[in-house]
């Protein structure tokens, strides 16, 4: 059978794309290497999940899928999915979305025109998006409504131009959030409850969040967390036009001729390989696996990988640097209220003296005790003995951490390539990640770290500590940028429609398209942009 479209990866971007194409009547084959992951599959293991993957994860990938990570000293390390150098997102039906935290940020208008606003710093590849905020805004709104976002409409409207309110009120404020609110008021900072892809009230025939203590990194126990796994993908399947294959790895995109993709070759769970044809191929495998698949599909017409005519494929890899400051409230403040994140400020997203862009600051999702021990203890506190135990007892009920993504300044040397020797269990070259963040990103992160400390200081905390930002590659769960869109084929991988410049029927729809990644968690933008790409495909009748 020949499909109208094959979508590689049923994540955030792929899920949205599948729904729109299937609802338009197209016959869609949606291929996902992971499995369905619901709370029934959840072991609620505090050491093996997507928030702390010390020895493993609750979704994939599993054995036989290494990557190569090159540290700043130039040393190559073979890394497993649960190790930090792997920069994993998550692998399941829904991609990162069944286990994410669900912060649902729109980028700001200036995030789409960073080069115009700030100029291009030396060594960076800062560029404007080929589209504006105004062009994406209607798609943000569709995603907020169709996937489901709760938020503080009136306060958020002071930050973004938006047509309509959120359809759900914001989630509950924690005691910590209220405490930080007083401090922000004293500083004159504008704050609000972050928008979340979490039901604050029943929505879409699913219940409201129970405020449980297990949130980010795990599947939701009442299915109140909204991702593509419980919205767009079921919608696609409900049309009868979409076939979803799980535990199925796409190995290769096949070309019919230099300008036309024929389809894909995949391996299913039983180890059988199949080749299937389609009128259109859309790669939505995330910002590391999408370029890897395009590299691994090189032909004599495209010897350096599909979409790599300009040499930009895999470059400009960026996640987000995350400065973090921690302090102790004078009295216990922990109330165990999930999802936990309940106050943020966009005061420093732009317009900071001598800084390119800026970032967002928020308090933290519910923090499991072992995560506090591993990541949030001050460096000088002993890790064992009576003092360590007493510190945990004193600090855990009192700690407040303030953190958030900064607007990374992309550079072409932060990149995904394929490794010359290391292969995965399918015999394919694995992704090789190399490079460092741009010095301007470090400056921004340092600036935001100071603002986080300022907030804690104003709150009157007892003690403040944190980690000064390092210059290591940032990719991870917020990975983006490796197939950047642009109007000029010489400086981009796809055009503004997400179509690979030199190939008529090969598209990308995921975080890879982001030219810059905003100073915000990226998933709402990935969904909105994929919605726009998919709608364009439907409209142009391709």
């Amino acid at each position, binding site marked *: 059978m020949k499909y109208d479209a094959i979508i590689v990866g049923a994540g955030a971007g792929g899920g949205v794309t599948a729904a729109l194409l299937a609802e338009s009547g197209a016959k869609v084959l949606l291929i996902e290497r992971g499995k369905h992951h619901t709370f029934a599959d959840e*072991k*609620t293991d*505090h050491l093996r999940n997507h928030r702390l993957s010390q020895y493993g994860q609750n979704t994939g990938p599993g054995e036989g899928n290494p990557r190569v990570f090159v540290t700043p000293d130039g040393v190559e390390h073979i890394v497993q999915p649960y190790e930090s150098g792997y920069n994993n997102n998550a692998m399941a039906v829904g991609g990162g979305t069944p286990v994410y935290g669900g912060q649902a940020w729109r980028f700001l208008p200036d995030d789409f025109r960073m080069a115009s606003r700030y100029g291009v710093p030396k060594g960076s590849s800062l560029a404007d998006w080929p589209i504006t905020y105004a062009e994406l805004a209607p798609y943000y709104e569709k995603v907020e409504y169709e996937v489901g976002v709760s938020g503080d409409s009136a306060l958020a409207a002071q930050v973004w131009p938006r047509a309509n309110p959120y359809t759900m009120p914001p989630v509950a404020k924690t005691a910590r959030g209220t405490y930080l609110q007083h401090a922000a008021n004293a500083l004159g900072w504008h704050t609000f409850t972050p928008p979340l892809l979490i039901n604050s009230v029943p929505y879409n025939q699913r219940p409201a969040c129970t405020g*449980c*203590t297990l949130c980010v990194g795990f599947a939701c126990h009442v299915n109140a967390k909204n991702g593509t796994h419980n919205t767009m993908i079921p919608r696609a399947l409900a049309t009868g036009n979409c076939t979803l294959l799980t535990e199925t790895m796409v190995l290769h995109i096949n070309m019919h001729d230099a300008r036309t993709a024929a389809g894909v070759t995949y391996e299913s769970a039983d180890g059988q390989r199949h080749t299937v044809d389609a009128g259109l191929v859309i790669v939505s495998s995330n910002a590391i696996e999408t370029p890897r698949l395009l590299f691994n599909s090189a032909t004599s017409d495209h010897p350096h990988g599909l979409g790599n005519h300009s040499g930009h494929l895999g470059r400009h890899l960026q996640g987000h640097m995350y400065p973090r400051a921690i302090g102790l409230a004078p009295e216990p403040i922990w109330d165990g209220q999930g999802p936990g994140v309940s106050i943020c400020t966009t005061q420093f997203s732009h317009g900071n003296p001598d800084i390119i862009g800026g970032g967002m600051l928020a308090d933290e999702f519910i923090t499991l*005790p072992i995560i506090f021990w591993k990541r949030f203890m001050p460096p000088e506190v002993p*890790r*064992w003995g*009576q003092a360590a135990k007493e510190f945990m*007892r004193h600090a855990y009920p009192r700690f407040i951490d303030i953190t958030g993504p900064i607007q990374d300044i992309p550079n072409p040397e932060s990149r995904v390539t394929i490794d010359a020797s290391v292969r995965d269990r399918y015999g394919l070259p694995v992704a090789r990640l190399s490079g460092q963040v741009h010095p301007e990103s470090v400056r921004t992160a340092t600036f935001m770290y100071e603002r986080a400390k300022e907030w804690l200081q104003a709150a009157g905390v007892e003690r403040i500590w944190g980690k000064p930002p390092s210059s290591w590659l940032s990719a991870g769960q917020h990975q983006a940028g490796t197939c950047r869109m642009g109007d000029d084929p010489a400086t981009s991988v796809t055009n503004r429609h997400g179509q690979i410049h030199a190939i008529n029927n090969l598209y990308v729809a995921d975080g890879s398209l982001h030219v810059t990644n905003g100073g915000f968690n990226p998933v709402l933008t990935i969904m909105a942009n994929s919605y726009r790409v998919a709608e364009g495909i439907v409209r142009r009748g391709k």
Partner: protein
Amino acid sequence: MFDATQYATLRAVVDCMIPADEAPGGLMAGVDRYLIHFLQHDGVGFVSQYQSALTALQHEAELRHAASFAQLSQAQATNLLHALERNETQAVWRTSPSAFVATMAEHCAEGFYADPRQGGNAHGVSWISIGFEERR
């Protein structure tokens, strides 16, 4: 995996790293059993480091106090581990003493502060002491 002396030493180190006070310590919470299970599964890569370090620890105790490690007072054991953190040794070590102390401290904390399903935080005793309650 461990002989009787090594196992006794392991338990004594756990007791030192997460001592009992007004709240239960690592031994009462099952951290020693957690470590054994861990070393048989995800922690297999650490087994030889543990074996060699536990034997060296016993020798340190014999050389310094003419006693086995498990017989040392809490203060003696703690001081000895602090000396190892500074890589001050009297016995022969085939593995880095300071690295071992840091590694084992981390493994003990993983057992003690992670979910009770892992086996090292029996009845959630560590969570009760810090005020964390798992709630759905």
